[in-house]
């Protein structure tokens, strides 16, 4: 059963469009899956390798801009951005890694945060390449119907899921976790911590960048303030993983459901809607205090908690 769970869920998701869901629900589903991809990517670096990045918008943005610039300057289909973003995002990740990975713990977090801002402002200023603040808009998106977008992002999610699972169960995964647990010990066990941290960062960046390239194709419009957003991208990414479950396979998916789906529901409750940031802020605080590894990360604690609630 446990082994089949990913298959079952992927299968269920795959037949969803056949139910004739409205395009609104398809949009929400697409966002949920896209955020799961970003969450899984972040989890690889943050959850497994212990390097907490506050700048994942950098990779998302570079991915999105790869697609956007290809469309805008080279007049190719923005879908070429998906494969090509792998190259560009890797290059950016290597540079960022070279700079930031010598920093440890919270300083890495601050360093990546700063790099995220630097990239945003750079994109705003390099008007010749990025069109600056005017952003890039697709004249026409490939499909009006959402089914294909859904399957593309679902495929991306499945690939990411399998990749993460394979990585985590291999030598790489052991090394990542060893680095997270104790960098000095890992180093003295013959683990080239700099190398493997860079590998984790690059892998994480590539999947995030793919999601970014997908975003360009799907939303049809990007500008630096959207795709390099500190709060709306970098911090939401962290929240997806923190809320869903740190260092778990399903955590990002659960987190994405909560952050997109629940957000959508709460936002639409009349009157209370405007307070949804408070709600999520409190949710985040409560989760950090009581379920520090997220909902799926601390399932046991959660079960205990709910049982006590029932008894009382």
């Amino acid at each position: 059963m446990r082994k089949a769970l990913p298959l079952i869920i992927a299968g269920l998701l795959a037949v969803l469009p056949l139910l004739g869901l409205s395009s609104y629900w398809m949009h929400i589903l697409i966002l949920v899956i896209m955020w799961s991809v970003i969450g899984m990517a972040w989890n690889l670096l943050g959850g497994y390798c212990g390097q907490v990045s506050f700048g994942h918008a950098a990779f998302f943005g570079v991915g999105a801009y790869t697609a956007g610039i290809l469309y805008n300057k080279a007049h190719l289909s923005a879908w070429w951005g998906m494969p090509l973003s792998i190259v560009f995002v890797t290059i950016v990740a290597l540079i960022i890694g070279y700079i930031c990975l010598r920093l440890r713990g919270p300083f890495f977090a601050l360093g990546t945060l700063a790099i995220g801002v630097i990239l945003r402002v750079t994109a705003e200023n390099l008007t010749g390449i990025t069109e600056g603040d005017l952003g890039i808009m697709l004249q026409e998106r490939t499909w009006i119907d959402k089914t294909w977008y859904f399957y593309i992002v679902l495929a991306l999610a499945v690939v990411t899921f399998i990749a993460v699972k394979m990585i985590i169960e291999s030598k790489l995964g052991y090394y990542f976790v060893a680095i997270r647990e104790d960098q000095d010990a890992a180093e003295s066990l013959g683990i080239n911590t700099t190398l493997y941290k860079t590998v984790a960062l690059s892998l994480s960046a590539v999947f995030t960048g793919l999601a970014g390239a997908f975003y360009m194709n799907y939303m049809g419009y990007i500008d630096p303030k959207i795709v390099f957003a500190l709060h709306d991208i970098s911090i939401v990414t962290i929240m997806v993983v923190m809320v869903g479950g740190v260092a778990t396979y399903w955590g990002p998916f659960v987190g994405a459901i909560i952050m997109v789906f629940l957000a959508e529901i709460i936002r639409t409750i009349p009157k209370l809607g405007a307070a949804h940031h408070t709600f999520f802020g409190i949710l985040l605080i409560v989760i950090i205090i009581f379920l520090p590894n997220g909902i799926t990360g601390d399932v046991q604690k959660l079960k205990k908690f709910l049982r006590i609630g029932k008894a009382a």
Partner: protein
Amino acid sequence: MKRLTLIILIAFALSLSASTLFAAETFDLVIPLPLTGKQAKFGEMMKRSYEIAAEEINAKGGIKKKKLNLSFEDSGAKPETARAIVEKLIDTKKQPLIVGEYTSSCAKAVAAVAEERKTPYLVVASADDDITRQDYKYVFRQNAVNAHYADGLVSFIKNVAKPKTMAILYESSAFGNSGADAMEKDAQKIGVKVVLKEKYEAGSVDFKPLLSKVKAARPDVIYMVSYVMDASLLMKQIKELRVDAKLFAGGAAGFAIPEFIDNAKDAAENVVTASLWCFKMKLPGAKEYAEKYKKLYGDYPSYHGASAYSALYVVKDALDRAKSWTPDGIRDALKATNISTAFAAIKFENKEGYQNQNFMDTIVMQVVKGEHECVYPDNVANQKYVFPIPTWRERR
């Protein structure tokens, strides 16, 4: 676990059912707006204005005897959320037309959805040129495009100030960029040399390095495109550094809201700004709306509010005329719109590469004795402009 799912389900069911129960006697209109985040101020102002308009419309018997029932959804100025809201409106609420949004990036996202789903969308305050340049058949815009925001001001500069040189300062945003580019082109047209054109990050605290450069360049006109409060900080620091020029001009937005004067105080004096609207201009309904707004919320609205207020009248007019309340019926009605509102006369035209765009005369406001007055063009002005303006030293 069960309890949790139950709660989620109930919350979910509530949110879905709440607005569909009373559908029969009312016309429901859900408006997406930024109510949180940095743009929330404008979202709030527009929300209040929509509410005032809806109340007036309902007091006079609603639209074809149906009560106009407004509600708002917060998009937080995030395009993906704006898109979600609109997809929902079209799909689950079957709303036949979309009104709203504020930022250009959200409006672009909404416009794309509206066009794809063949549902008319009335853009109320987003200025980016591209929105109505996409060959969209279902997207209408009642406010001027950014390229024309400063038309009135340019003619003021050409006919009144007659400068030789100009410096352009603009904030780093789509609005700032396209505003600055448009002014650069216009300046060339009227033979004014742009000696400096520079961008800054919105929300900056210290503009002095930038202003020192301006001071060294000695331009006749300093034109600034700024959102919100950057405008007042710029003027405060211009005063402090005694950067003198023949004319200080703002490109709408931050210069056109009352907070500009509240905050910049005497530094705001004599500053002119492009604007789409001023409650003092000679336009039927403008004053009444502004006074109502002031009574409720303690301050006068800027053109953003007026546009929102009038948008509902445009909607009412189109719905009154529409053969059927279907997307296509409403689109055809909108296309034939020709009414005058408290904001401007509104008519959607295809020209200069724009589609379904309302072309309006933009005005010049000047701060005179601590208040925004409409000074140009003469046919709508309520007061004569102050020109030439004294230097900072003379003002002491």
